């Protein structure tokens, strides 16, 4: 299945892009996707990162073709 991935803040910097389309196996869960991307881009402090699926913050769910996944780090600047 194809997933549309969006990156924000320091994650976008680590990835060198703000979005990408990923082809993954149909069985991949949200947690597995997170782990794989964290390793791929050497993203620090993964526990603090929240994920949104189709514009809704979610954890530990199954994914389906065409889902949009956002990787959201906490910001603190002001």
């Amino acid at each position, binding site marked *: 299945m194809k997933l549309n991935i*969006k990156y*924000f*803040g*320091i994650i976008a910097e680590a990835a060198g892009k*703000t979005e990408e389309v990923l082809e993954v196996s149909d069985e991949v869960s949200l947690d597995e996707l997170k782990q794989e991307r964290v390793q791929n881009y050497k993203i*620090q*402090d993964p*526990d*603090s990162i*929240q994920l*949104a699926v189709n*514009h*809704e*913050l979610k954890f530990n769910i199954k994914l389906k073709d065409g889902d949009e996944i*956002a990787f*959201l*780090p*906490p*910001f*603190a*600047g*002001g």
Partner: protein
Amino acid sequence: MRYDRQIKLNEVGASGQEKLRQASVLIVGVGGLGCPAAQFLVGAGIGRIGLIDYDRVSLSNLHRQVLFSEEDLGKPKVHVAKHKLQQLNSEVEIDIFEEPLSIENAENLFQMYDIILDGTDNFETKYLINDACILAEKPWVYASIYKNEGQISVFNYQDGPSYRCLFPQTTRQNISCEETGVLGVTPGILGTMQAAEVLKIILGAGTILSGNLKLINILSGKDQILKISKRTEEIEKIKNQGIIPVSIHCRISDETKLYLDIREIFEQPRISSDRVLQIPLSELEDRLEEIPKQEDILVFCQSGKRSKKVVDLLKAEFNFNNLKNVEGGVETIIDG
């Protein structure tokens, strides 16, 4: 006549203006977010505004904190802000608190206001605001910035989600605007949007950003809204245990060396060690005699950028030949 243009709106009217006059708002942090928010809220005729900040105006504040002027450099922000805001609208009552928000003062302070506006720049204080708002049963308007991106939401509003529902787990990567750089307009836009949420809450107008996190990207112009669900256990935890301090203290990995930490006191993680001299960059000029010249010292900041400038400057202008920059910043010298 002062409020004529907003009273003309259906959402305001004479009754809405009276609601604004009877309302009170506490602004925590009078910086990039807090300044524009304060200006518009004072302009709109909020009855009473509280300002809490212990910082002083510095030259590098002026590109984004346009409430301040060159003549204000070195003066306490809350005093200058009150003076300027009172010139804008003398009808508004302005309380000032020249102190940090702390576990000791937060809940009592919040009890005195209807809405809390977060103008802070560190995780420690954002979690503190969150917890104290849950205990004091007050809504708060949150915003944060990373370079050209911003996040804004309203927490603890009418039984809605809290900041801990969005980010249950904090991070050590506390990167301030001082560190990464920011266009002045970015906190200007976010702070102004925070003021808009405050007005909407008071007026009961429109859709409040509660349960929604708005993400703004100044460069791409693409904004997004993400839905946040309530995590009841995160809210109950605070109600049962009280404020849970988020303090990110670390130890240095090599205690045989001497270090100089030039970060401001709010920057995380803090290092607990008698081998670390803590002299924030903003005080460095007045405290040079505290830095020994006989022993080798490793100078660090968050990323290694500011500390490099400090090492070069102190060597060139003050004959410090014993200083070395920590290239990768604080993360490279701490344990774990």
